């Protein structure tokens, strides 16, 4: 028999999919619009600001206690807020919300090459090669049947000629893919912020389409009557009704224009200044999607101009790159992220939304700023993490995670745990997670 979870994940948790209507009329799930949790969990949605290239912990959120080569470490740090967390001076606005951040300084187990590292950071724990977002959606079910549940936001805001790329994820489609889970759990990629989802415009007028859908349902009813036990036939009929709803819901959800007209919002997300405009727009959009029940939203960093000529992403090997690119990369996300946290807090959403910042690896070693898989820093905010807290630590020079090291796969297990999902119980066709995952309870409040 198809179990409810199996059925729902196969059919209902697909991007923007059916969970309403006659088929579910007597089902409690419809009202809750989500699957039963394994244990109480706070996180309903996740916004992952992914720093492409692997940011150096020593330039951002993990001040090294001893520095051998000052040319590679040009940035200062400050103790911030009541918590006194030390945060890099390249993030003046995040410094102001320090008391909301939970820094995780002891990440390890990353793969120190970009492509594989990207795939690994998004899928590490999954025996099926499914991304974290796909598992979360699989576990929680869709939060809004009229919208995709897992979204990758790239592209740029109108008029942004400052950023050098649209933002992308190392590892490509696999990093946000469904792996061995149903493909419908993979991230819906938004390339064009002006036209986020394809095929939303119906050639028919609203009333005409309503009638057309009734005709379609009638037509399908004949085939379903022959096979009353094949539930997916009804689901497919339902998917057209969901599509119909999405035609209205998606443009509304993805349209930031109205909100972006407010000066307060413009300021909060940095929509006026060029360096923050695209990132701000995407994070504002992400917040709108969170409000509407979308589960997992990845916003990848964009490449930016190098102050000393050229351009780059967080893959900063040389002193020139460190000096020239990092200030701009930080500039691009500092105000928007601080604004996002403030905004979520004001709306009472910060408790149920987890904001994650991090890249595919760390950086730095004796005399160099090259890739480093044995230490990286992520931070999280909201979703019940311990605010104003630094979890774990690296060695003197910041090259290796030594105190409370947390593996990439442990991060996955921990994030899912905060969603109310137990990685040992998440399975698909009997296959699930790496059994060596450990939940790091220390980062939860």
């Amino acid at each position: 028999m198809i179990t409810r979870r199996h059925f729902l994940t196969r059919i209902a948790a697909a991007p923007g999919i059916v969970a309403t209507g006659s088929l579910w009329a007597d089902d409690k799930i419809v009202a809750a619009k989500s699957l039963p949790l394994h244990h109480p969990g706070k996180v309903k949605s996740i916004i992952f600001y992914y720093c492409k290239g692997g940011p150096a912990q020593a330039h951002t959120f993990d001040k090294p206690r001893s520095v051998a080569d000052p040319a590679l470490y040009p940035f200062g740090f400050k103790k911030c807020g009541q918590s006194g967390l030390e945060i890099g001076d390249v993030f003046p606005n995040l410094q102001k919300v320090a008391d909301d951040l939970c820094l995780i300084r002891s990440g390890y187990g990353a793969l120190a090459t970009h492509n594989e590292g990207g795939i690994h950071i998004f899928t590490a724990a999954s025996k099926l090669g499914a991304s974290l977002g796909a598992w979360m959606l699989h576990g929680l079910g869709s939060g809004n049947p009229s919208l995709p549940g897992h979204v990758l936001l790239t592209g740029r805001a109108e008029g942004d000629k400052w950023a050098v790329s649209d933002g992308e994820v190392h590892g490509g489609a696999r990093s946000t893919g469904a792996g061995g889970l149903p493909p419908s759990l993979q991230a819906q990629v938004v390339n064009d912020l002006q036209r986020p989802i394809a095929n939303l415009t119906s050639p028919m007028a609203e009333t005409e389409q309503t009638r057309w859908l009734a005709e379609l349902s009638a037509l399908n009813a004949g085939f379903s009557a022959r096979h009353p036990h094949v539930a997916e036939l009804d689901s497919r009929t339902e998917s057209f009704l969901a599509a119909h709803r999405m035609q209205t819901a998606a443009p509304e959800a993805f349209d930031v224009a109205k909100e972006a007209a407010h000066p307060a919002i413009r300021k909060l997300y940095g929509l006026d200044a060029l360096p923050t405009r695209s990132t701000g727009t995407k994070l504002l959009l992400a917040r709108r999607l969170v409000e509407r029940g979308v589960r997992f939203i990845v916003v990848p960093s964009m490449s930016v101009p190098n102050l000393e000529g050229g351009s780059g992403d967080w893959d900063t090997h040389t002193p020139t790159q460190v000096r020239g690119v990092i200030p701009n990369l930080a500039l691009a996300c500092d105000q928007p992220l601080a604004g996002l946290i403030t905004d979520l807090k004001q709306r009472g959403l910060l408790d149920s939304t987890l904001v994650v910042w991090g890249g595919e690896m760390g950086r730095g070693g004796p005399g160099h700023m090259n890739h480093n898989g044995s230490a990286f820093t992520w931070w999280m905010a909201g979703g019940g993490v311990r605010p104003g807290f630094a979890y774990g630590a690296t060695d003197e020079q910041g090259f290796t995670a030594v105190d409370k090291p947390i593996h990439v796969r442990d991060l996955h297990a921990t994030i899912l745990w905060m969603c109310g999902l137990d990685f040992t119980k998440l399975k698909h066709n009997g296959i699930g997670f790496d059994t060596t995952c450990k939940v790091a309870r220390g980062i939860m409040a």
Partner: protein
Amino acid sequence: MKLIIGILLCVFARLAFAAPVSFEREVMPLLEKRCNKCHYPEEQRGGLDLTRIATMLRGGDDLGPAIVPLKPDESPLIQVLTGAKKPEMPKKGEKLPAAEIELLRRWITEGAHDDSPTFASDDVAFFEREIRPVLAERCFKCHAGDEPEHGLRLTSRQGIISGGQRGPAAVAGKPEASLLINAIRHEGELKMPRRGDKLSDAQIAAFEQWIAKGLPWPAQEKVLARAKQFTISDADRDHWAFRPLPKAVPANWSIDATLKPHHEKLGLTPAPDADRHRLLRRVTYDLIGYPPTLDEIAVFVKDTSPDAFEKVVTRLLDSPQFGWRWGRHWLDYTRNGANAQSNRGPGLDTERYAAWVAQCFNEDRPWDWFARIHLAGDKMKAFDGADYSVDQALAAAVPLNGQRTFEDIATQTFVLMDKLDEGVEFMGRSLMGISLECARCHDHKFDPISQRDYYSLLGFFQSSWYAPVPVNAKSRVEAEAAAAKHRALIAEQARLNGFIRKTSIKLNVGGGGRVKRWQESRIPILTPKDKRLRELEIAVVRAELADAEKNKTASLAADLRTTLRELEARLKNHQPPKYDFRTLGQLNHFIGGHKTQLGLIKRATSLHETELVRELEEHLVYWEEERQRWIERSRFGGFAKTDPEVAELAKADARINEITAELVSNPAQPWTAPKDTHLYVRVDGGLRRAEDLQPLDDKAKAAGLEFNSNDHNRVWMHPYFVGDARLLLRGDVLYPDQLVPRATPQFFGESKRELEGSGRLQLAEWLTTPDSTQAALVARAAVNRAWQHLFGEALCRTPKELGRLGEQPELPELIDGLAAHFVAKGWSMKKMIREIVLSRAYRQSAVTTEQDIAKDPDNRLFARQSVRRLEYEPILNTMSRLRTGQPFASTGNLDGADYAPYFDKPTVYDVIDRRVASISATQALFLMNQPQTARDLAGKLTNRLRLDDKTALPDVLAIVYETLLQRPPTDAERDSAQGFLDRRRKQTGTTQARDEVREFITLLLCGNEILYIE
């Protein structure tokens, strides 16, 4: 009274405090944990054996007796632990904590006694005879070593008594209270040994007796094993898929006869025969991936001869589309034959491989041969008898197409390990249907495959690699010579590059940083050039600003003004540029554009600034030439290539260019296909093992070869590897262990073949050895999958895992019978498919009674056919036929409508054993709203029907239904269509027949039935 209690308490406390240290319970486990990985009888590192008191007193080679009873400070054991004496111990891992050292001191102070009980020799003999063999064979696979299952170590008496996470396993003298007995009797929730293979009653009785006697154990051997021991159990041999195939199948054996008793047992009535239309639709989609044509329907429906259906099946099996359809099923198990990661691994000719696979299916080449080809196609004669077939060599390279690699040449060995792992995985998953790759890090937890077996197989794959050979190679000798020559050229090139690099560094340094000086000399020349470029940029932005103002895009104009201000400010303080190779390269993008970067030239062009464009184009040329100059100067130590000082380097450089022209593939970018004249195929001779690289490097350098150890081509510089793989502890390349001779897994019996070269040919021959267990697996995997493609579900529903981790099939005898027929009929795919398709089971309807569905909701006994959605390729086929009206139109052009993201195009990343049929709103949007899908197809089809304005929908219904659903409409459907028409007329007021038909066809195209086979 109180006093007495007080005294008693004191005595107890004192006793508890002063209880002597127990050798058995405390000392021995500690020694086992920290010392006896080296100091046990078989190893005796430094001549020392710490497992018994006697041998401790005898001591090791250097420090004399390890312990001096009563005198801990004079005991070398303590001295080496505290650091008082060299060598410090333990050699590996951290020092012992003070508490543990203190324990040992106390034990020595107390006289170093062994407190383990001694047993009568008869009882020990009983243990040796009855218990020990069972423990070793049935328990040590998991309950031994450093990380025993559930913390329970059954290798010592103490281990059994102290137990694991569930508590003590045995209580001496009390079998009834012992968890061990409970577990082996299968009385409680815990049933051991795991997976149902219970001990015999006699064995259980022996264990009871043994525990009742107090667990007698030999005094001389306290620990029986120090690592998990790979064993093969009867349950392994008895697993359905690991049994040999039945020798002979009764003459009257059939699918239907096999199913019948199962149906009867459950009271299932098989569904009636499917009607002719639906049957024809099903079999045509199943065998060739297309719907039947109108003519084919007419012929079959009218054909009343008894063999009408057989004729259809023959026609379909003979159709060229059959090979493509069934070849595609195989491609799912080869990651599409494609190199999944666009910039990794060899650039295999995927299309050529797919065509060859289709050809093999169409010619019905035997499956066992087909399987062998994928291991050793380059070493086998061509199917037509020729000496060599490049297609077969390509097929043998396909297992190298996985995505798991690393990008850095310094870790090239990792590339190798993961690529090779995929070779073993492919052999297991795709050919045999088992998970051989699970044994990479440890013995297989469920199947009789040891870690050693894994590495014995790995050697075959490690001894070969890929290389480009001529497409028209006629003989193996020719192909191998071409590959060898290619490799030699790469090595020569790498050597020359090393020579140039080393010499140029010398020239540069000798000249006092000649390169740097030259670069500095360029700054005054480049500064005005750069300044002019900035001016041009400003001119472009100005033009854009004017354009924005003209078109009244205020926000854009504001942005441009900001940009302009910044640029002008920067120009005012123009600095000489700090150029390097990277920034020079990026200038190219800045001017000319790149990927997402819109270059200045394009921006100026779009504004029709022809004068600007002209000058920018000049700049583009200039800066590219400049970049080349920088590269040249750096390569020749600060000289120009034509300078006499570097004549020798220039000569080497010229030779490198010659080689580059001669090479048919780019060794630095193997993921790009070789020249048209060549194909990447598999050849013998692989890359070296990780740990061999450094010594080989040293040797090569000593012999005068100039190269850098991080050189991209370094791995090509050493002799090619043919030999055995090394076992890697925990599967980690950083921990190589002993060499494992190439061999086949122990469970399947020793292969006596003499290995030639890599030995892959012998491995391939072994795989399909007649009457062998491994050949039985290959056959079972094939028939099980064929069944899946014809019924929607396989007989064993985990088709790439037939081992004990997979699902236990309901009808193993059906798999076995089919597999035996398959082998007996020469491994003929077509005959096997024909046998299944002609069965009544296949031909029955998908519609059955509610009761029967309730009795077998998952259709495990196949008393009905299934309802299943078409896969991606048949959907494309269907749509392209509707688009063109041609029976077998190419699926390449669907007017820009991309079905892949919505209809589950298979991924190339993994081995796929089950296609998904996802249902999503985005799929519905695609069909409803994408202008080139349903609506457009409906329009095209309507046009082809050539309707005139007077035709009414009901009149064309028959043809519409037959074209789309391959069946006539029922009366009810005619009525509904009429209803649709009436409602539509009322709503829209139109009565154009063409429109009506088109609308109705659109509806059918979005509906369910067209995408489902029943």
